[in-house]
């Protein structure tokens, strides 16, 4: 049977490649492929400083100095990823089958183990491709180190894939069988909960010491020590053992790390295969039914939660679409996600008020500032509960008696509201944490005033930048619907990556162009106020700049509305 699965996998791969080659006749794919190949060429063969193809010896030496903390932090990240898989519903995708697979494989005389093996075989292609791409970006210096990185990452992906499959089966078991499911899965659940508890206790215990350290380097070093010794060291041993393999700096280190990784791989494999064995022993026939039902693709489990607000019977269409898109976010990502940020803000505030002049606060302030940047500049690409998500419903939207410009404005309101809220949280956190406060009273007033002024300016500008980017993103979806990602599925490949790079370049260019008038007008206002008062203002120019950008966004929606009227529903192609 394995031969049949391999045949299916290989045929699928070959046919997908054929389709990709054939569609290169279309300029949009050829352009995408050209840009994608050029990108890979420059990533692989060009580097600042003239040396080609690999990380410099100085770089490796500098990195080696941080190897301990790096492995410790990577192990924590991996642990968090694994822990999230236990609580996050989307993780059950690990055992999702396509419609065609269900149509052909489920009625076939196959056991559940065979189906799981097929799923594992299929996942290897994606894992290998992922590890190759990651290795390209890591750019190891020699063929030998490239080989260790590729296989190291591949094994990490393999373990994660197995573990996620096991988690998905365990979650289903718990959901469907309650206490009896818990009895079956008590061991892995206990291990995860205990490990999380130990790590949390360690961080709480060492918190005061970490916050008293003067520099970020000291904090990292101490954090590395705390997470690799004692109980936390034991709790993080499995994830540390895994990340050691791709991060090995020599073949000797690689071979030393390999047995533990292979052991963990085997352990996860046995767990996945045994997770259902108890079932089959209890009732083979019933088990087969349950398993088939369990493995079938089901719509994402969505909980009907209360709507974000009551939709009044009358009012603007924009509000109705905002309501709809906030429900989308609430049903799939849960608005409670925002509440989870509240402890983060409280934590920032507590640290800010309790400990000044420390390395920890400098790390946190950097994180908060980085958070603002990420949310404002990358958020509009990630939060997509707007027209990009609705393109699959374009035929329906086009029957609505609504001006297309109003439709686009309504569509971007929900992600704009969410991202603005998030950005404001991080701006406030930055205002609380950033910089060291001078000890004398006059200096304190100046710094606080400046921080607050800059903070208010950031609060004003952030939504404008977010809205402009969302309009650009949605505009590109309207103008180039065939390049847009429809719904939640994403195409892959070098040509698609090239398309996205081209789109990204267009987004940044358009953003820059849209910022120019705002900057000019804000500059003029600032200069006039400075001439009149002798004080360089921050808030008023920021408010004007924000207003200009929002006005630009409004005008853009009018133009895009006309383009949407002309958009042909047939030009939207499903992603593969």
């Amino acid at each position: 049977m394995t031969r049949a699965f391999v045949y299916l996998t290989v045929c699928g791969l070959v046919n997908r490649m054929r389709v990709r080659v054939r569609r290169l006749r279309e300029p949009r794919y050829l352009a995408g492929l050209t840009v994608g190949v050029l990108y890979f060429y420059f990533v692989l063969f060009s580097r600042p400083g003239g040396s080609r193809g690999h990380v410099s010896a100085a770089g490796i030496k500098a990195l080696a100095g941080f190897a301990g903390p790096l492995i410790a932090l990577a192990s924590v990240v991996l642990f968090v990823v694994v822990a999230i898989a236990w609580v996050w519903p989307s993780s059950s995708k690990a055992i999702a089958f396509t419609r065609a697979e269900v149509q052909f494989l489920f009625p076939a005389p196959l056991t559940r183990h065979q189906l799981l093996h097929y799923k594992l075989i299929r996942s290897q292609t994606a894992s290998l491709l992922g590890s190759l791409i990651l290795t390209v970006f890591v750019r190891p210096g020699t063929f030998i180190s490239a080989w260790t990185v590729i296989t190291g990452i591949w094994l990490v992906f393999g373990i994660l894939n197995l573990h996620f499959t096991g988690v998905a089966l365990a979650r289903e078991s718990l959901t469907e069988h309650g206490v009896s499911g818990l009895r079956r899965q008590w061991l892995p659940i206990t291990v995860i909960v205990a490990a999380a508890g130990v790590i949390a206790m360690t961080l709480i215990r060492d918190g005061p010491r970490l916050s008293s350290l003067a520099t970020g380097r000291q904090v990292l070093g101490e954090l590395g020590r705390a997470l690799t010794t004692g109980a936390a060291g034991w709790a993080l041993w499995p994830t540390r053992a895994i990340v050691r393999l791709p991060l090995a700096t020599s073949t000797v280190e690689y071979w030393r790390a390999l047995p533990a990784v292979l052991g963990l791989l085997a352990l996860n494999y046995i767990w996945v295969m045994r997770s259902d064995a108890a079932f089959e022993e209890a009732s083979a026939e019933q088990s087969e039914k349950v398993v088939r039902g369990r493995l079938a693709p089901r719509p994402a489990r969505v909980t009907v939660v209360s709507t974000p607000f009551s939709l009044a019977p009358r009012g603007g269409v924009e509000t109705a679409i905002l309501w709809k898109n906030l429900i989308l976010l609430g049903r799939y990502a849960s608005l409670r996600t925002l509440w989870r940020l509240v402890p983060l803000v409280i934590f920032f505030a507590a640290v800010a008020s309790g400990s000044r002049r420390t390395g920890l606060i400098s790390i946190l302030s950097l994180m908060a500032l980085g958070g603002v940047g990420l949310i404002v500049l990358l958020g509009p690409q990630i939060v997509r509960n707007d027209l990009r998500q609705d393109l699959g419903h374009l035929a329906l939207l086009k029957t609505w008696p609504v001006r297309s410009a109003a439709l686009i404005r309504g569509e971007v309101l929900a992600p704009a509201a969410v991202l603005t809220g998030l950005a404001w949280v991080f701006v406030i956190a930055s205002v609380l944490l950033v910089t060291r406060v001078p000890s004398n009273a006059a200096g304190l007033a100046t710094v606080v005033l400046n921080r607050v002024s800059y903070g208010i300016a950031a609060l004003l500008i952030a939504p404008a930048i977010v809205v402009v980017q969302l309009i650009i993103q949605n505009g590109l979806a309207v103008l180039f619907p065939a390049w847009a990602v429809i719904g939640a599925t994403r195409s892959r490949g070098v040509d698609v990556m090239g398309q996205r790079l081209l789109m990204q370049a267009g987004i940044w260019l358009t953003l820059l162009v849209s910022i120019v008038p705002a900057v000019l007008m804000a500059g003029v206002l600032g200069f006039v106020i400075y001439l009149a008062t002798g004080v360089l203002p921050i808030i008023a120019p920021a408010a004007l700049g924000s207003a200009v950008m929002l006005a630009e966004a409004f005008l853009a929606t009018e133009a895009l509305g006309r383009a949407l009227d002309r958009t042909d529903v047939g030009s939207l192609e499903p992603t593969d």
Partner: protein
Amino acid sequence: MITVTHLSKVYGSFKAVDDLSFIVGPGEVVGLIGPNGAGKTSTLRCLVGIQAPSAGSVTIDGHDIVTDSVAAKQQVAFMADEPNLFEYLTVMEHLRLTARIYRVGDIEDKARTLLQELQLTGKEKSLPSVLSRGMKQKVAIACGLLHDPKALLFDEPLTGLDPLGIRHMKETIVRRGLAGAAVIVSSHLLHLVEEICTRILIIDRGVKVADGTMADLEAHAEAAGSNLEQIFLKVTSRDGSPSA
């Protein structure tokens, strides 16, 4: 009233609809039939503004679907063959959203009546993911009927419905026609078309090949006493054999 004048729709070099003209008056239930690829769906899509006509014009209750689209769309409802629902909205939320979009106002009583008519009572808080295909179809139809449109377009309205649902759906369509709506029903179920439609329009390769009552079609096909299936096969046959 639906007025279609010299409508054409071209995809690249392929002409899906070719110089099609017809009128559906208030109270008329017109059956739109034709072989696969005849241009039925393209016609319906042009009629509701999903696709822009390549040539010609479409007016709904006197409003042009291209130049006065908001007013035209306010008067029309399109029930597609594949129900297009938002996976994250419940049945009642679909109705609330539709009511707001079509400016219906307070809909609680109206929604209750519609849900009852379409046997959706008790499903108000259900998400589409837990509904059968037939139920989803009914939700889409409930949304379409909510604003009392003057023009109704059904594309394969009976797909996925159980026998009771089929009976209710036929009653719903006829009732809307009797209430004065201009109705177009596109379907391959010729017995349905024959049963509920007051007039039948047959198209093939984008061109109108027959239009009229059953008596008109019998005369047109020189097939007195024939049923719609026999007439359909006769008028759409090429070289003596039915078209694919």
